[in-house]
């Protein structure tokens, strides 16, 4: 199917009232979730997952996608107004967004984040169409060794790129891989690490793990801090209007951020959080006056916001064309598809073109809606920040429990959420990144299956990973990343050892 036919099919699917309403619902819900600190897209999508059993697969994916990129728009609001990131992806926006707000330019900062988010998304959509077509055409060449090598690269990239403490990051990935082993081993049928619990035979429930690590752990960590933050000032429409100079300074950072986001979003493992940090670092490095950064530089808002939105869109590339989720949120999306009997992979573009193109067009509609709705509604989003956290978190706890329970009607999973939540809080306290744990958990079983298959085909010869050109390329990049990160650790250690005056 050609691109134009595809887009026409997509409009037919996405504009159908039964899908359009879920698109609107998804983006509005996503914005609300993004604005409110303490709950992110991860918890929201876990909560909505059981609801998707009741609607068509197109509507389900369109809604969950809308929550994901809608949260990217909303996340910037709390970052700019309260220096409290609404979502991890918008943490970097606090660095210059909050100083802008203190200088009375909150409205302009909000405009910059919305506008560059929109541009980033549009560029991301173009990249999604182009990359998916290209990847699907070469993915039929991929063997078990290539899949395994690519996923290992993804995990290594996620724990080394932009990471100050690669050992801690990688420990989280490995812990996630171990948790992914729990349950029945697909190759031999042996039940591993279940300690006799029949509830664990299917493995640890992904929704319980995600909710424990992100919902419960974040609630515990936020109860006291969230109360101390002040209330945001009122922002009206007139304050949103940027000057000509602002627009000029936003343009190039937005485009560069979008390009970075498209690349790192499509790579499994790295995603919108890493893209936004890299975009900020890039802008500061190439700026003529780097001293403006941290004191309200509009470039530091535009670049990262464009990057995280572009990455949120291109994250669908490996998920849809290879069936490999690039981040934990994509794993939940993949789960939603599998529930409906759709197995994403190289064949999906041919087997379910209406699904793929409907999603692409819905991204366009959803982002346009967000841009049109959010600017006039900014007053409402700001007033959401006035809701005290003590009214919200008991509701979050109850919804988390019911959401987990509804997946398979098991109170064992509610108990699991409590245990995982406690562990997650301790991990967060020791500054381990739980997102990497979840990534390892999701990719673990896929890596193990492909690794064992590759070794069986090669008769136990590990050289197979270097003999196949595709996998050799992934192995080479992985080795480079590890060496680069060891060099970084060594340099920092040397710097710390020789005190500079």
């Amino acid at each position, binding site marked *: 199917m050609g691109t134009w036919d595809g887009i026409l099919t997509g409009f037919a699917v996405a504009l159908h009232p039964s899908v359009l309403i879920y698109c609107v619902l998804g983006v509005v819900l996503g914005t609300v979730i993004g604005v409110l600190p303490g709950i992110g897209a991860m918890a929201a999508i876990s909560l909505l997952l059981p609801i998707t059993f009741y609607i068509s697969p197109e509507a389900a994916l369109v809604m969950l996608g809308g929550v994901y990129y809608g949260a990217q728009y909303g996340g910037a609001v709390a970052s700019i107004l309260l220096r409290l990131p609404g979502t991890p992806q918008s943490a970097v926006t606090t660095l210059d967004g909050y100083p802008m707000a203190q200088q009375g330019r909150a409205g302009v900062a909000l405009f910059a984040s919305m506008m560059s988010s929109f541009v980033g998304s549009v560029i991301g959509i173009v990249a999604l169409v182009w990359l998916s077509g290209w990847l699907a055409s070469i993915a039929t060449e991929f063997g078990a060794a290539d899949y395994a090598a690519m996923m290992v690269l993804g995990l290594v990239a996620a724990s080394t790129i932009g990471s100050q403490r690669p050992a801690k990051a990688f420990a989280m990935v490995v812990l996630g*891989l171990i948790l992914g082993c729990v349950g029945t081993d697909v190759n031999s049928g042996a039940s591993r690490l279940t300690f006799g619990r029949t509830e664990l035979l299917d493995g640890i429930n992904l929704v319980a793990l995600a909710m424990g690590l992100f919902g419960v752990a974040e609630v515990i960590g936020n109860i006291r801090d969230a109360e101390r933050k002040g209330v945001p000032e009122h922002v009206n429409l007139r304050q949103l209007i940027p000057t000509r100079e602002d627009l000029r300074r936003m343009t190039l950072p937005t485009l560069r951020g979008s390009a970075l986001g498209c690349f790192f979003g499509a790579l499994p493992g790295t995603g919108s959080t890493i893209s936004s940090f890299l975009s900020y670092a890039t802008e500061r490095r190439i700026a003529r006056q780097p001293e403006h950064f941290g004191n309200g530089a509009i470039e530091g808002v535009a670049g990262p916001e464009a990057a995280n939105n572009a990455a949120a869109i291109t994250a669908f590339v490996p998920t849809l064309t290879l069936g490999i989720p690039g981040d934990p949120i994509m794993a939940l999306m993949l789960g939603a598809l599998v529930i409906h009997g759709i197995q994403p992979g190289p064949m999906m573009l041919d087997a379910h073109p209406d699904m793929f193109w409907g999603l692409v067009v819905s991204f366009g509609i959803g982002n346009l809606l967000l841009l049109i709705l959010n600017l006039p509604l900014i007053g409402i989003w700001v007033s959401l920040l006035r809701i005290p956290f003590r009214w919200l978190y*008991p509701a979050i706890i109850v919804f988390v429990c019911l959401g987990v329970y509804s997946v398979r009607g098991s109170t064992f999973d509610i*108990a699991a959420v409590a245990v995982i939540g406690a562990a997650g809080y301790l991990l967060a306290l020791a500054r381990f990144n739980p997102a990497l744990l979840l990534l390892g958990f999701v990719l673990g079983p896929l890596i193990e299956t492909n690794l064992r298959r590759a070794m069986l085909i090669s008769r136990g010869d590990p050289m197979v990973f270097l003999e196949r050109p595709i996998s050799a390329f992934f192995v080479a990049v992985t080795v480079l990343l590890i060496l680069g990160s060891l060099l970084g650790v060594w340099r920092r250690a040397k710097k710390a050892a020789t005190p500079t005056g």
Partner: protein
Amino acid sequence: MQRDYHDLWGGAAMTATGAAVALYCLGHYDFGTMRQMGPGFFPVVLGAILAGLGLLIAIPAWFRAGVVAPFAALDAVVVLAAIAIFGFGLTRLGLVTSTASAVLIASLAAPRGGWLWRIILALVITVLTWVIFKQGLQMTIPVWPDF
């Protein structure tokens, strides 16, 4: 000397977990060969790697000063108790009773005195969950205790 206790304990916990997993799986599951990996291969190797990484994290932390972040133990206990009550009560006490009691318990952690707002909050959330999950999504859960 004030050491970096977060990394020290974090690393030690990783080493302990990794070693426990590796030893347990080595004892209980077939390791297999490179050609025909058994169910034990992956967890044993991963457990060993995790134990090693834990040491890499913990040992430098011993020689480094660090700042200890406050530990919200009370908040954690209250939130976990609310979840436990909810999980225990859902099928036994019904949706309404377990939601209201979970909200009341969870609200104990809030740094704000008074009982009226807690009771109103419990009522509002209970009605909301009943409308969304029972009326909207038609979940098969008891609403009231089954006497």
